[in-house]
């Protein structure tokens, strides 16, 4: 399945792009997606412990089961206000 990934804030600088796609087998989790992304974008992996993950408009954890068409957002801690 194809998963679209968007990067936000300085994660765009770390990955060098605003968005990308990943091919994953059915039943893959966010954890597997992250492993693939960290292989492609090593600078992102340094931020592992402060990475927030959303699918669509909702926050999700690493064990979330991805579905075809999911749009994943990865970003650093938020800083509004």
């Amino acid at each position, binding site marked *: 399945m194809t998963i679209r990934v968007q990067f936000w804030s300085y994660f765009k600088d770390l990955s060098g792009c605003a968005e990308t796609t990943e091919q994953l087998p059915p039943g893959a989790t966010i954890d597997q997606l992250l492993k693939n992304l960290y292989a492609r974008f090593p600078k992102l992996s340094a931020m592992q412990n402060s990475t927030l993950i959303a699918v669509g408009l909702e*926050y999700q954890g690493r064990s979330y089961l991805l579905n075809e068409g999911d749009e994943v*957002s990865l970003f*650093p801690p*938020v800083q509004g206000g």
Partner: protein
Amino acid sequence: MHRLVTLTRDPIFDSAYISQRSMSATMGAAVSFSGVVRGHENGEAITAIEYEANEPMALHQFDILLDLIEEQWPMIETVRIVHRLGKVPVGEPSLWLEIIAPHRAEAFASGQFLIDEMKKSVPIWKKMIG
């Protein structure tokens, strides 16, 4: 509860928002907050902060917080939130919010809750402009 959440690239004129306020006769308290860009951030002089948002998600996450407020303080009549995006110069508000409630205690408490929580969950980020 009336909810007005706005993400805007225009300057925030809080006095204009306040002059548009409407309160029913059972409401006794309006608390408003303006968060203004300061000239220093982490000890460094800056001229502006540039705000970026994941806009649809930010609006949704604000809505989740407003659900929590409605549950915890069911008597609140109105919450208005305005967050500016893009480059906000020092001295100008990046955030304005207002709570209208029967009594001051719930207006103050929910206003503080809203700001504390949005800083954890609403996907908005800042970049200092030197």
